């Protein structure tokens, strides 16, 4: 772990964060707003990568964890008027519970079967939100009275700081012995178990950590948007974006997932003039990366460095 602080990756990341933190001094609020959302998305993607890249769990429903966190925080604030920070913490905790619920089938079924369970979890959540419209705002969405801050710069710094801390924790975890055990149990659970590691405990831990960061990020995002809706935090399409981000940036790299998310959101914005074709172009680029650079951005960069 200590050797990480001397690697080129660490210095590049540090430089990027320092440069990013000075952005509010000279770019417009519009750019900051865009990046704020991108940073929260980056955390979604990193949390997903911990579960997929390391624990080997194909989670098609990242938005189940995100949505539970986001909606819990939103409902507590909008319906009961609890304070923003309490709501955010409770949202993250609710998401941890959701992560445990999701972990139960993961311990029984594998591969595509687990993938489908997670997809079903998202659809159930979506149905729940629509059916209990009085509580959740239904299809229209829930308007949240409080926000963290109305200043674009402050929001940006919170998002950047949050992403940096999350990245440090998640990356550190992935490089630690725990991360190695997770990776082993993802690739061959029987053999990892035979080596004496407690697979169940490690997998549960991965789900809890992934859920915690997803939920926390979802709750923060809700207080940034000032609204929680199915289209922004629950819909399967949002989950697809999270997965695409992680694969695009390079799975099993954690940091790459954040890069992929930022790329995806910024690229979507740059392509806005192309109108309805924007999603098509982003998907096509992502498909090309998947086909020709299966390691993703960071994976390709790291393997080049390793070769030289």
């Amino acid at each position, binding site marked *: 772990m200590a050797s990480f602080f001397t690697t080129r990756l660490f210095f590049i990341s540090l430089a990027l964060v320092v440069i990013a933190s000075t952005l509010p001094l000279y770019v417009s609020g519009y750019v900051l707003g865009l990046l704020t959302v991108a940073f929260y998305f980056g955390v979604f993607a990193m949390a997903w990568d911990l579960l997929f890249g390391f624990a080997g769990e194909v989670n098609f429903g990242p938005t189940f964890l995100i949505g539970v966190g986001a909606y819990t925080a939103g409902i507590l604030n909008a319906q009961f008027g609890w304070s923003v920070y309490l709501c955010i913490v409770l949202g993250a905790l609710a998401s941890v519970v959701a992560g445990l619920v999701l972990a139960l089938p993961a311990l029984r079924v594998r591969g595509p079967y687990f993938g*489908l369970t997670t*997809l079903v979890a998202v*659809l159930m959540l979506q149905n729940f939100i629509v059916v209990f419209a009085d509580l959740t705002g239904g299809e229209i969405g829930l308007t949240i009275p409080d926000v963290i801050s109305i200043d674009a710069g402050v929001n940006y710094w919170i998002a950047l700081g949050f992403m940096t801390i999350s990245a440090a924790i998640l990356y550190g975890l992935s490089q630690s012995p725990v991360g190695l055990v997770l990776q082993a149990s993802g690739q061959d659970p029987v053999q990892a178990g035979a080596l004496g590691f407690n697979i169940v405990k490690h997998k549960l831990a991965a789900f809890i950590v992934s859920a915690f960061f997803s939920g926390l990020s979802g709750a923060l995002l809700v207080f940034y948007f000032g609204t929680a809706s199915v289209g922004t935090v629950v819909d399967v399409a949002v989950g697809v974006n999270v997965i695409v981000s992680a694969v695009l940036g390079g799975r099993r790299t954690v940091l790459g997932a954040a890069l992929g998310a930022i790329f995806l959101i910024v690229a979507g914005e740059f392509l806005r003039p192309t109108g*309805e074709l924007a999603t098509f172009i982003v998907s096509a680029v992502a498909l090309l990366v998947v*086909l020709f650079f299966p390691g993703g951005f960071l994976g390709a960069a790291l393997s080049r460095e390793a070769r030289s």
Partner: protein
Amino acid sequence: MRRTQNLPPARLSGQSEMRAFQILIDGFAISALYALGATGFTLIFGVSGVLNLSHGAIMVAAAVAAWAAASIFNVGTYAGALIGVAVALLAAFATYFAVVKPIQDSRRIPNEEKEIFVLTGTLLWGIMIQELIAYFFTNNAKTVLPIVEGVVDVLGVRTPKNEIFTAIVCCLVIALLWLLVNRTRTGKAVLAASMNPRGVTLLGLELTNIYIVVWAIYGILAGIAGVLLGMFLGVSSYSVGPLTASAFSIVVLGGLGSVSGSLIAAFVVGYLETLTAYLVSPAYRTIPALLLLVFVMYIRPQGLLGRR
């Protein structure tokens, strides 16, 4: 809304009797359509282990092509339907040659990760098809002109002829598929490949040729299902996700790779949805099927007739 089962049997009015017939007839048509859509999907998984997440997009492409041919270019309903099926066939081949085969042949993707790459790749491909459809033909719902029009009286229920036509075509196509797989040389090779791919290659059969046959069968099945769906319920580019999800869940419920399992599952899901829509509320239509799916995954993770 009144529930049929709340009434004592002796006082069953003619109305509730008619509703029972209506549920039987509507449920059958929908189930048959689901079965047709899911059969091709499960066949591809059984033979080549590919879960094609662009399934919904291919079905919608077929329906929209049939709609465009008949409504914009006035080629007639039969020719329109044929064009729809042809488009689905082309789309299926494109999916195989542009997305699935490159991933399967790639040396840079480790074998144990090919599954998730195929899932991501076909998902992106499906989004691309969906966006192209939305770009050229808008997001509006389209109903393909039915081949047969009019209404008939079946057991006292006024039923559109189109609905009966849909059910008959679905059953005929499935019967033809059964004959093809069990009674022809090509079909037997396909069946053998689903049981033991290596054994088939040892017998001197080219596996790639078998895959091409399977994708052709899949394209035709998805095309027919898409066109019929377009005539029966109408489609829009928004139907892509739900269609893929329903095929996926039917196939998992029945047992991945088991064609007879997915036929049973299609009828279970079709009738469950119709019953819920008629007896409870159309808003809860998909919920019982989702609950059943979760329940089956806990008790019998390999699905109803799964082999694993």
